């Protein structure tokens, strides 16, 4: 090995070491499907696998040749069925696999670790080889290379098993060879290539695999499939495989698992199909029927019950009526006008609001109001609310400021008859509050009428503490407002 080559391997090794244990999957890895105008549900199709292993045929004369894979036929049948549903976007391993040439590709790092393990194995530096291979296997599983690049994963397990055989660690070798068969069940080896003992160990592993491989072990457990779906940004996965012992026809197995729609839901098995193996066409038909059956009831975007988010802003305009409970006149007088308010739902249950009312005073019974006046009332504060699709109820509390334009009142009839004659009407006989400042509280309801339109009603009261007249002659207004509002964003 040249110096440059060694340096490259060291760099790869270091890169493998710094790969974080829970390295986030490359964002680009889930790319691969064109954006569609129609909302689509992403469904991952796991590689179809033919677990009908014949231990006696594990080693063949001459070079192993690739033969038509029945598992791939099943996966293709699933893909064809799903492709007929426009609201489904299929995600296959090839869509997720990053270019091996990419410098960011984790596969490149794993491949480097494999080569390092192979080098150490050939140099008979077995412990170092095992270390590199185990590191490669761990890294590969984190980025789901057992799905995306099973041949690479298979080589890692092969050399891991060979190393353990060299070390005399039969049990570990047995596990490694079984893992090899799990990711590449159809793999064959050249007869005589490995020592007799190694061939025997591999054959034993194959026999054991047939007996012990659990049917439902999708990728080694639903938790791993769940993590893979997150990686693939999919919400369902379809797995297909063939099982059967030597001498048997075998069976076609189809499994569909999807993420539960409940909050924090985990992956659950939602559909399964099984049929005896009677040829590729019948197997494809089983896969197609199982997937079609699931699709018939699957939650697709158009069938999804979307809970519309509640509005964050509430704007209303109202007709307003108000009466001051403390007045300098002998009888109460009415005020009527309009109001406009805006509430911003800061978070659930809490809002901030602002409101402006313009009110015109009506004449009081005894004419103690020398003239009509306008009240411009501004209130602002925070509110506590309970919301739903029906609308919301709220309690608003805050500051209130009233500007009273040309308020003049008196109980002296002379001041009414000669309002501008100081000789007949001393200034002290006329009350002229101009502004009022205090606190306000209001209770209201916004009842949804249709869509974002709602009926608004509120009743409120205020108490003023500050005025240009020391005794705050006008105080404690109660108000009623009713109108229409619009909830948005």
């Amino acid at each position: 090995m040249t110096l440059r080559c060694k340096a490259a391997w060291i760099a790869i090794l270091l890169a493998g070491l710094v790969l974080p244990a829970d390295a986030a999957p490359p964002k680009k890895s889930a790319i691969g499907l064109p954006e569609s105008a129609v909302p689509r549900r992403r469904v991952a199709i796991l590689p179809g696998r033919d677990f009908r292993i014949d231990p006696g045929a594990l080693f063949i004369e001459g070079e192993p040749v690739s033969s038509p894979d029945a598992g791939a036929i099943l996966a293709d049948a699933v893909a064809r069925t799903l492709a007929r549903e426009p609201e489904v976007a299929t995600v296959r391993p090839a869509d997720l696999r990053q270019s091996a040439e990419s410098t960011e590709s984790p596969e490149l790092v794993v491949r480097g670790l494999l080569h390092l393990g192979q080098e150490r194995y050939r140099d008979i530096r077995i412990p170092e080889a095992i270390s590199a291979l185990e590191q490669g296997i761990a890294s590969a599983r984190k980025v789901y290379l057992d799905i995306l690049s099973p041949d690479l994963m298979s080589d890692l397990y092969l050399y891991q098993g060979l190393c353990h055989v060299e070390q005399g660690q039969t049990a570990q070798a047995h596990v490694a060879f079984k893992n090899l068969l799990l990711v590449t069940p159809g793999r064959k080896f050249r007869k005589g290539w490995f020592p007799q003992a190694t061939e025997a160990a591999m054959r034993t592993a194959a026999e054991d695999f047939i007996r012990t491989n659990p049917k439902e072990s999708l990728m080694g457990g639903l938790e791993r499939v769940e993590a893979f779906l997150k990686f693939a940004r999919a919400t369902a996965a379809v797995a297909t495989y063939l099982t059967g012992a030597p001498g048997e026809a075998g069976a076609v197995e189809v499994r569909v698992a999807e993420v539960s729609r409940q909050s924090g839901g985990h992956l659950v098995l939602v559909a399964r199909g099984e049929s005896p193996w009677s040829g590729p066409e019948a197997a494809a038909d089983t896969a197609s029927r199982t997937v079609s059956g699931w699709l018939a009831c699957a939650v697709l975007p158009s069938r999804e019950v979307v809970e519309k988010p509640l509005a964050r802003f509430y704007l209303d305009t109202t007709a307003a009526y108000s009466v001051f409970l403390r007045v300098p006149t002998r009888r109460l007088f009415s005020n009527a006008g309009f109001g406009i308010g805006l509430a911003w739902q800061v978070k659930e249950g809490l809002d901030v609001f602002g409101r402006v009312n313009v009110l015109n005073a009506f004449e009081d019974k005894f004419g103690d109001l020398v003239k009509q006046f306008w009240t411009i009332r501004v209130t602002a504060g925070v509110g506590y609310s309970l919301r739903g699709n029906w609308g919301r109820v709220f309690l608003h509390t805050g500051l209130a400021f009233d500007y009273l334009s040309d308020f003049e009142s008196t109980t002296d009839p002379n001041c009414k008859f000669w309002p501008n004659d100081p000789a007949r009407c001393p200034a002290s006989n006329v009350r002229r509050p101009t502004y009022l400042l205090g606190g306000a509280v209001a209770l209201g309801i916004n009842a949804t009428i249709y869509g974002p339109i709602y009926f608004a009603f509120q009743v409120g009261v205020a108490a003023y503490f500050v005025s240009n007249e020391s005794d705050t002659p006008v105080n404690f207004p109660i108000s009623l407002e009713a109108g229409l509002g619009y909830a948005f964003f």
Partner: protein
Amino acid sequence: MTTGRNSTGPRLAFLGLVAAMAVAAGCTDSRLLTGVYRTTAEAPVVVDGVPGLEGGAYLELVLGEYGPDVAGIIRFYADPDFIQTIGGVCHCRFLTKGRFEGGVLVFAFLDPSSCSQATVDLISARLTESDNGDTLEGPIGRVLATARTARFKRTTAAGDLGSEDKTCDEVGSELPVDSGPGDEAAETGEGAE
């Protein structure tokens, strides 16, 4: 369409509520009595014991009613055309203690025979409003029990009342028996009413 119907109902209901509350809070006409009233030409007012009014005078009431309270002026004329003032008598007096309750107007005014503000003699009146509100009738005098009845008819409605109708300069309005307004104005330096 459904939306419109739904939104109109509550709005109309609310406006009805506002109207009802407005009426309940007292949106009534508080100016029923307000206006100018004059004695009729056929029946000059005689107030016994008041110099200048004992021989009969034509009186003009300018009233402003505010609930139960009444403010205003009473003017005194010598002729039924309400042009000539009465010699030796104040041209006008402000009403005091004016009240209007149950269709009866009660008020008092200072004896006009002396224009001094210092006078304490009050002349009172209790006038009853007719059904149509255009006529006031009742006694005016120092003692109402024995006073003669006066009758007033509305000549100016509340809406037509001008600021000049409300003008009264009590002190400067007394005229000497044998002199005209121009002389009085020259003496006091103020304009006579």
